[in-house]
Each structure stands twice: as C-alpha cells, then as structure tokens.
C-alpha cells in the first residue's frame, strides 16, 4: 500500500517539475502558458492526494481557469514570441 502511494507521489512530483521546466524553457509564450496550466493542474492533484480537497478546489479555480485567462489576455496585448 505505502509503496504504491509513494510511487504515485513520485510520478506527480516529476510531472510538476517537468511542467515548470517547460514553462521556463519554451520560447513561444502561449506554449509556456499551456505548460503552466498543466503544472498547476497537477499541483491541484497533489493537494488532492494529500487529502486537502478544499485547497484543491481553490487551486483548481485559480490555477486552471483564472491564471490562464489572465495570462492569455495579457498575451493578447503584447507579443506572442519572446525575444532573445
């Protein structure tokens, strides 16, 4: 039981890390926003596994819907490609 739970935790943490690295590394800012949305989605799943459903609901609302919306509206006003 505990072994499987540890494996689940490791999988989720690896995916959060890869999402964050992608968000920094990608030059296309829309792709970076999508990677950030994926990372916050998985952060919410991690809160959920740690048995804090209220925090998970808050993270879902803020991370998946609100942050993505704000970043996309900001992209609309500026450039999509990052300059070197």
């Amino acid at each position, binding site marked *: *039981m505990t072994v499987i739970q540890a494996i689940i935790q490791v999988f989720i943490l690896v995916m959060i890390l890869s999402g964050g690295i992608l968000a920094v590394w990608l030059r296309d800012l829309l*792709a970076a926003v*999508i990677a950030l949305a994926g990372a916050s989605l998985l952060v919410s799943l991690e809160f959920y596994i740690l048995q804090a459903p209220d925090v998970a609901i808050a993270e879902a*609302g803020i991370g998946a819907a609100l942050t993505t*919306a704000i970043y996309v509206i900001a992209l*609309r006003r500026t450039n999509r490609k990052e300059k070197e």
Partner: protein
Amino acid sequence: MIVDPITFFIVAACFLLFMIVSMVRLGLGPTAGDRIVALDTVNTLVVSGMIVFAAAYGEVIFVDVAIIYALLSFVGTLYVARYLEGGL
C-alpha cells in the same frame, strides 16, 4: 466481497503513467494546437483519476472536486482556443 482499496491505487498509478505520456506530447508538440490537445487529455485523465481516488479514500467530498474540476478546466481550454482563433 468488496474490492480492496489497493486496486484503486494501482488503477490511479496507471492513470498517472498515461498522464506522463501525454506530458511528452505537451513538451514537444510542434504547434500550439498539439499542446492544447495534450492539456485536454491530461484534464480528462485527472478528472477520472480524481473519481478513482475518491473511491480509494472513501470520502464523498472528493468527488465534488472532480465535478468542479471538469467544469473549470473546460474554461481554461476555451480561453486558449479563443485566443488561437483570433477572437477574445
């Protein structure tokens, strides 16, 4: 005889494996459309994984998180899609 909770944990671990495969496509998709498809797949997998976890822990309130997640992740997908087609 009722299923042991360890079954649900194994199923959830399989879901996480599929999520990793989808994250690969999120990383190397050539266009933004490919990345949104991958994000949508991860959303669906997370929602059904949350339902399975709720059965594993035996708590009702956990399923409500899944319902809210299913509706809110849709909003995020729609925002990026609207940006891509030039509306918004």
